[in-house]
């Protein structure tokens, strides 16, 4: 029995070691491999530069030689680093910075498997001595605030969170003008729908980080109706009541597929999932059905999910990579400041990704013209009449 107990203890240790590894690439060697792998794809993407947001990232990659590379560390939310959208795009900002010599190869990420991981992960990076800690997502707001107040000299950047002045002043909160970008997607969706019904759903009802996409989408559809005299309906979100369809997390892809099936049952043929990886469930169903479009979020899905390209209409880009890259550059240059920073459509902080080739050229041109109007501010989403 004693001998058995020893084996058991050994097994237990093994389990814990492997489980700990799963929390993210903890040691330097795996991180380097990760970083290199991603860098090659980043280069390949840079050559193609399909989008304006990326174009900006590449134009700013020329770092002054005097600047010393910093260690940037990213804490993900529960969606994981490979979520094809949110965390992955932010991490691209870090790898771009490594590429540009602004961040060291020691830069790292830690994945949060649950909300209780946020604080320990931040603490782990504090212990590691990271120059900049990037917490990705609204859900990390409270924990970032606590840790920032306890460590006032540490540089923090949080995505999708704007603190009230006086609260966690050392943190730079990056927010995005996604309403404008999603407005373009809504217009495009209304232009291609054959059933006259389009739909959107979210992961968790997070004000702005998720719902601004949905707001913009609905406004875009209304604007299309206003201009073209059509009556395209949007299911899944009511910006006035702030009620709609949500899957409840950013993990359950099968639920995303089921929700999409429900929309299709009610006649929708263009779907905008604002739910990180859950949206892949929508893409899978769209590919199977063949007559349903899906619109990507955060990253350009033609690049992150190429297997669904036949049914990808376009993607609502959110320049998380630009924001992260900018913050790293500022820390490296010593110009980093706390406070809220808006990445708006006018400076390509957000935008619309590549549009499917099957979309008629006139409609693509209309969308391009609409982008200019939004940049000028001559059209403001939300001003459209209810339809």
């Amino acid at each position, binding site marked *: 029995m004693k001998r058995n107990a020893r084996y058991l203890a050994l097994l237990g240790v093994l389990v814990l070691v492997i489980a700990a590894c799963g929390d993210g*690439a903890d040691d330097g060697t795996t991180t380097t491999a990760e970083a290199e792998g991603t860098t090659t794809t980043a280069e390949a993407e840079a050559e193609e530069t399909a989008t304006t947001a990326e174009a900006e990232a590449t134009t700013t990659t020329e770092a002054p030689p005097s600047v010393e590379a910093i260690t940037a560390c990213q804490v993900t939310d529960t969606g994981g680093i490979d979520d094809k959208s949110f965390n992955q795009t932010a991490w691209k900002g870090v790898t771009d910075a490594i590429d540009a010599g602004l961040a060291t190869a020691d830069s790292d990420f830690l994945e949060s498997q649950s909300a209780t991981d946020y604080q320990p992960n931040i603490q782990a990076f504090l212990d590691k001595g990271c120059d900049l800690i990037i917490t990705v997502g609204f859900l990390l707001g409270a924990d970032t605030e606590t840790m920032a107040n306890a460590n006032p000299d540490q540089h923090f950047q949080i995505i999708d969170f704007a603190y009230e002045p006086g609260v966690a002043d050392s943190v730079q909160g990056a927010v995005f003008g996604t309403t404008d970008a999603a407005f373009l997607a809504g217009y495009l969706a209304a232009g291609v729908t054959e059933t006259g019904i389009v739909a959107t759903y979210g992961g968790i009802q997070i004000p702005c980080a998720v719902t601004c996409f949905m707001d913009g989408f609905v406004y875009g559809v209304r604007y299309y109706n206003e201009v073209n005299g059509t009556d395209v309906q949007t299911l899944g979100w009511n910006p006035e009541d702030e009620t709609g369809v949500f899957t409840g997390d950013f993990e359950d892809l*099968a639920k995303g597929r089921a929700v999409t099936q429900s929309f299709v049952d009610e006649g929708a043929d263009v779907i905008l999932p604002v739910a990180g990886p859950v949206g892949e469930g929508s893409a899978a169903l769209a590919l199977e059905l063949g007559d349903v479009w899906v619109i990507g979020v955060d990253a350009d899905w033609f690049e992150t999910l190429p297997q669904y390209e036949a049914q990808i209409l376009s993607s609502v880009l959110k320049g998380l990579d630009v924001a992260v890259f900018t913050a790293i550059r500022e820390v490296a240059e010593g110009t980093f400041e706390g406070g809220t920073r808006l990445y708006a459509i006018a400076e390509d902080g957000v935008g619309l990704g590549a549009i499917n080739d099957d979309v008629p050229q006139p409609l693509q041109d209309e969308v391009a013209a609409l982008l200019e109007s939004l940049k000028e501010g001559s059209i403001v989403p939300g001003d459209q009449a209810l339809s």
Partner: protein
Amino acid sequence: MTAVAGTADFVRAPAEIRRARILGIVYLLLATVVFLFFAVGTEGDVTFRLGDQPGDLDFTVSAQVLATFTAVVFAFLGGIQLTKGFGAKTNVVLAIAIGLFAFSFLGWAAAGKSLSLIGMLGTTVALAAPIAFGALSGVMCERVGVINIGIEGMLLTGAFTGAVVGTVMSPLFGILGAAIAGGLMALALAVLAIKYRVDQIIAGVVINIFALGLTSFLSSQFLVENASGLNNPGVLGPIRIPLLAEIPVLGRILFDQNIFIYVMYLLVAGMTYGLFKTRWGLQSRAVGEHPKAADTLGINVFRRRYINVFLGGLIAGFGGAYFTLGSVGAFNENMTAGRGFIGLAAMIFGRWHPVGALGAALVFGFADSLQVKLGILDTGIPSEFLLSAPYLVTIIVVAGVVGKARPPAADGQPYIKE
């Protein structure tokens, strides 16, 4: 619950009488609620679509009439429940009543619009399948007295293995690999629980943490870099059974599904027969109820437990493959999202019986798809409230319908041979 059916003068336990009275009052309350909220002031017809295309098989009714009818039925049921009671049929009546309630609720929400009821049923099955596999796996293990908290981990392992093997070889091998991976996880649990007599809850939790850590680690290290070569198995589409699939309503739900759903139905039937009609089932249940007595009769308790826990793992692993090969076609970290735990709840709610487990899974699936549909119908009900609906349903159903459920007597107790 009601031991003697069919006789009017049987003696009822006080607790049972109390429960019958409470149920009667609940019926009357529901009648009032339905009438006040769903009938008064509701205008417009609601069209329930039962066919694949709009106009195929439509069923139009005035939402107000539907709600009023429901209220009257509920008042009637409440009256009977309070005076005579339904005896052995109480649960059947309650199930029908809940269905009717959901129906009138939908009618109210969709007044003036149309709604695809057939689509909702299809979504129900799709959402229920993984829960059902989890619950069946639990039944398999707990019937021989081993608590399996690790179902979630086995589902996740199955999902991962299914995606990778399915991409590298073929989806059918992916299913096989997923089942074996789940089985291996279960063997680990079995060794810990049966041989080393580790606390079974802790052993199961270890399996979950291990599976989550391992799959997340492998996914972020390998699958992200090489998604097309390792994580792109494709989805196994529905297999339409000729003729039977043409049956209205039921055809689409029962006979136009992918391989996972067929296997789910077969498993329920097979397990029910196996557990209650065969020698194997009798021995298994004996081991779960009173291992010492079973041992005395010459049943090898350890072997029975090992085999059944392994089988439970195979089922969970297979169910895990549903996430990747039967639904989405790609693995993502923690994509099972707690379905294994809901599966455990479904097992208890289904009273450790395969048919009950499937029924419970379908209730969860229906509540989930109802939540989505209500969101689409733009009823103005806050989304957070809608998201809690499946769990609310659980509480109501477990407290109201199931009554006292009794686990196998030796559940969770390691057997020590003297």
